[in-house]
């Protein structure tokens, strides 16, 4: 590489790049959705009155949280098929990232739920509210208000982890840049474009989160 910046290489990369952006955002959206919903299920499990629920959920989530995402990706993509379970690289990647981050969001939900004053539970009991109304009308709306910023931070984190999916050849931004470079032998332009793209998505997202935090957590 001679260090000369070649705008035509940037232009050539654009079609692939936009495909990569779309796929990255798709993984991010579906992964977030999965991590938010599964995380809530874990959080209920972690707060269960029965230790036969609490204990296994704790073991599973700690295991997933404390092993690297890349190892989990490889395991799901290369090892599961040996047992006859096979999904596309994209599905595997989305599930892996959503599952991995659900163990973080579970802790966030749990902290948010624990922070709701005990008096709210007592008032719900005093009014004989059924358990599902207590959760969905009283406790969770208050908990989620407090934790939106923390959940948002994990979305930004997740965005920055999507390049790991290149490891199982999902055609997200980084993988598109690698394919482009492999055919043109120009590494600088595609990789730079991808790097800039991450900052252009992640930084405004962080600003948005901060604004949201000011609005919600008063």
């Amino acid at each position, binding site marked *: 590489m001679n260090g000369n910046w070649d705008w035509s290489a940037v232009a050539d990369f654009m079609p692939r790049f936009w495909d990569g952006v779309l796929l990255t955002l798709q993984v991010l959206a579906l992964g977030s959705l999965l991590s938010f919903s599964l995380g809530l299920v874990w959080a209920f499990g972690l707060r269960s009155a029965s230790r036969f629920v609490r204990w296994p959920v704790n073991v599973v989530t700690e295991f997933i949280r404390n092993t690297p995402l890349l190892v989990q990706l490889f395991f799901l993509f290369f090892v599961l098929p040996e047992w006859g379970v096979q999904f596309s690289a994209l599905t595997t990647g989305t599930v892996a990232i959503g599952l991995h981050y659900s163990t973080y969001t579970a802790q966030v939900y749990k902290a948010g739920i624990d922070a709701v004053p005990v008096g*709210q539970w*007592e008032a719900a009991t005093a*009014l*004989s509210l059924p358990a599902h109304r207590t959760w969905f009308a*009283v406790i969770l709306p208050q908990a989620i208000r407090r934790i939106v910023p923390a959940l948002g931070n994990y979305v930004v984190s997740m965005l920055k982890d999507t390049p790991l999916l290149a490891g199982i050849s999902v055609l997200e931004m980084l993988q598109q840049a690698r394919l482009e470079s492999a055919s043109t032998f120009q590494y600088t332009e595609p990789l730079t474009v991808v790097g800039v793209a991450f900052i252009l998505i992640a930084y405004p997202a962080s600003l948005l989160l901060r604004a949201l935090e000011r609005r919600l957590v008063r």
Partner: protein
Amino acid sequence: MSAENAIPAPENPAATDELIRFDNVTKRFGKNTVLDNLCFSVKPGKHVTLIGPSGSGKTTILRLLMTLMKPEEGTIHVNGQQLYPTQGEKQLREIRKNIGMVFQQFNLFPNMTVLRNITEAPVRVLGLSKDEAEQRARDLLDLVGLGDRCDAKPTQLSGGQQQRVAIARALAMRPQVLLLDEVTSALDPELVAGVLDVLRDIARTTDITMLCVTHEMNFARDISDDVLMFDSGRVIESGPPEKIFGDPEHERTREFLGAVL
């Protein structure tokens, strides 16, 4: 509900003229005995005030009745139905519906408007239509002098206003028993009178049974049919307010009243 018939009658049914009955109830926190073999009963429609030094177990009695905690020993009956030892979650729920509670810290739901705070339980628990529940809520808000604050959020109200909403919220369930747990203790002094006036009004105009823990002795004297003086988890003296405040028998009662009056 048809299931009610299936609940077996308690072995030792409380006398029908007693709405609440405690028999030999003991409650401990660790080594600390808060209620010590407590026996007392309350007749329907009576207003009973529990007085005594802090830590003497008054609030615990209300929390036991509201099923927020369980006693270690003894039995509690409400309306002839056995609350403790529990005969299953189903009966607990049935009994709980007849009891309302107002808390020291109001405990309104901050994510709901004043109106929703009051309509939520009648709609979800009693099965009222939204319109019926809102009508009931508006009537109650008028009663507590907040008819114009339906759409406010609790945080936009003063402590006294929040507590009056909490009273309306408890009454919206039309409970037989209203438990009042130091409802003015968290309020600024100038807001206390408004809340107490509302409660005096309710005591005078309804036949609801009240169990009231308070340090407002004038209020206790005004509304009570009976006053129970607590010390160290026991009722050491009880009687009509004229007797307890005018001519207490027990030395501890005289000391306590001397300190607070």
